[in-house]
C-alpha cells in the first residue's frame, strides 16, 4: 500500500487516513517501583499494594545497573493487593535494585528503584512473527483529487 509518492505504507498494517479510536480498559498504574531488591532466579518480588495486578498480566522490570539489557519480563501468577507481593512461574533473569521507600531523599529527589511497568492491555494488536516483519499502525493524511486533505 502506498499513500503517495512520499510515503510508503508497506503492508501488514492498520492504515489510518482519518480518525481511528481505540479505548482499552483503564488500569490503575502505568509503572510502579520495586520495594525490595531482587536477584537472578527469584520467583517473587514486591511492589506497591492496591495496583489491581491480575493473574496472567505481563510486567517488565527495568534494568538498574549499567547494562541496558538487564531487564526482565514476567507473567504474573499471583498478586497480593495487601502486601504488593507478586509471584511468577519463571525466575528472574537478573538483579534489580529496590527499596521500601522512594530514594529521593538521598539523591536530590531522584527515585532510583527499578521501574516495574505493566505491558498488558485489554485491546491487543499482535503482529506476525515471520521474518522479523510484524504489524504497523500507520497514520497519515491523504490528499484527494479535489485537494481535500483526509
Amino acid at each position, binding site marked *: 500500500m502506498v499513500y503517495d509518492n512520499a510515503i510508503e505504507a508497506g503492508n501488514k498494517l492498520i492504515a489510518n487516513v482519518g480518525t481511528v479510536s481505540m479505548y482499552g480498559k483503564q488500569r490503575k498504574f502505568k509503572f510502579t517501583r520495586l520495594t525490595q531488591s531482587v536477584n537472578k532466579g527469584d520467583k517473587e518480588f514486591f511492589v506497591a499494594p492496591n495496583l489491581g495486578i491480575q493473574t496472567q498480566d505481563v510486567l*517488565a522490570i527495568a534494568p538498574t545497573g549499567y547494562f*541496558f539489557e538487564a531487564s526482565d*519480563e514476567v507473567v504474573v501468577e499471583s498478586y497480593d493487593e495487601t502486601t504488593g507481593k507478586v509471584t511468577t512461574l519463571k525466575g528472574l533473569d537478573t538483579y534489580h535494585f529496590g527499596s521500601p521507600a522512594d530514594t529521593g531523599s538521598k539523591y536530590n529527589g531522584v527515585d*532510583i528503584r527499578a521501574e516495574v511497568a505493566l505491558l498488558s492491555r485489554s485491546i491487543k494488536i499482535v503482529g506476525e512473527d515471520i521474518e522479523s516483519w510484524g504489524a504497523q499502525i500507520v497514520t*497519515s493524511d491523504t490528499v484527494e483529487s479535489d485537494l481535500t486533505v483526509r
Partner: protein
Amino acid sequence: MDNVEIYNASQANTEKAAIRIQGATGKSHSITNCAIHNGWAWGVNIASSSNVLMKDNVVFRMKPFSFVVQTSRNITLDSNIAISTVPREKDYDKITKIVDKEAAFAICSKKDNDRCSDISVVNNIAAGATYAGFIVPAHDCGDYEQKLFRDNIAHSVWGEPSLGLGAFFFPDPAKNHITTCYEASRFTAYKCMEQGAFMFMDGIQAKLTNMTMIDNRHGVGIQLAQKENEYSEKILMEYNDIIVYGDSEILDCPADKNDKCTKQNKVGVIPGAVAHGGKDPHITGASALPPYKIKKDGSWGGKTVWNRMTFKDFKATTPLGLKNSIISTSKYQPDYTPTVTAKDTRFINVHEDSVAYIRPPEPGWANVKDCGDFPCTAPYNVLFKF
C-alpha cells in the same frame, strides 16, 4: 488510542515502526497509556507530522529506537517510559567499524540538520538503552521556561563499542546556536557507562544547568568544536547547579554475576575541551568513540566555569576497589585543557583520595603523527581554580 497493547510489531531494518505517524498534519493525534513491546524495529516514528501527543506510554524492548521524531512540529512526548531499547541483531560491525544509530529517544537527531519546531519532551524516562537515553536539541541559553526538554531521566545506558550517554545535547539547527549559545537543563542521569549529560558540537558557548548526575562512569561533560575562533575569549563551557554523586546503592556487579559488570575507574566530571572538530549526535564510526575522545587538533582557547557544583558521596575507591575521582584529566585530550574556574563548589561526604587524579600523558601519543617523539603534555598543565 488509549490503553492499547501492541506487540510483535514493526519491520526489522526499516523505519516502519510499530506506530508510525508520517505526513499527518491535518488533524491532531493522541496515543496515551499504551504498551508497545517486543517488536522487530522502532517503537514510535513521528515524521513530517504535527499536532501529536504521546503520553504515559510504555515501550519495551524495541530496536534500536523507542521514540523517533523527525522534521515535525507541535509534538509532545510526556511521561513515557522506554525500557531496554536494544540494538538490532547486527548493530556494530567489527569489520567495517560502523556503529548503528541508536537511542531510546531520538528527537530531530536522526537526519543531519533536521529542523523541528514546537517540540516538547518532558517527564520521560529512558530506562535501559543502547548508545544514549536521549539525543535532543539544546535550548536557548537562559530560557528556563522552555518545554523542549526538561525533567527527563536516563539510566542504565551502555553499548558496544564505548557507548552509553544519558543525553547528547546538540545545537538546534533551526536556531543560531552555534554562533551564540546553547544550553540544556533540568535533567537526571544515573548508571550511564559514559557521561550522564554530554555536548561536543560546534559552538561558542555551551551550558549544562540544574542537573543531577548519579554514579555515571564518566560523570558529565561539555566539549566544543571551534576552529575559526579558537582564540576567542568568548569560548565558554559552563556548568551551573549540578549535583554529581559518587557510587549509588545499585550494585555494579550483582552476586549472581548475570549482569554485565563494569570493573573500571569512575570520574565525576571530565574537563572541558575545545577542538577543531566535534562529534555528530549519532556517532557512526567506532574510531570516534568514546564520544569525548578528541579526534582533531585541540584548540588553544576556551574556558570552563563551574557555578555552584556539588560533589557528594565519593569514596576513595569504587565498591570493586577501583579508582574513584571527582576531577580527572582526560585520556583523550593530549593538547590543551582549558582552565576551570569554580565558584561556590561544595564537597559533601567526599574522601580526600577521591578529589583529583591527574593522569600522566599517554605513552602512545609519542609518535610523529600526533605529538612527535615525546607524549603531548597537556595532562601536566591543568588548572582548577576554586
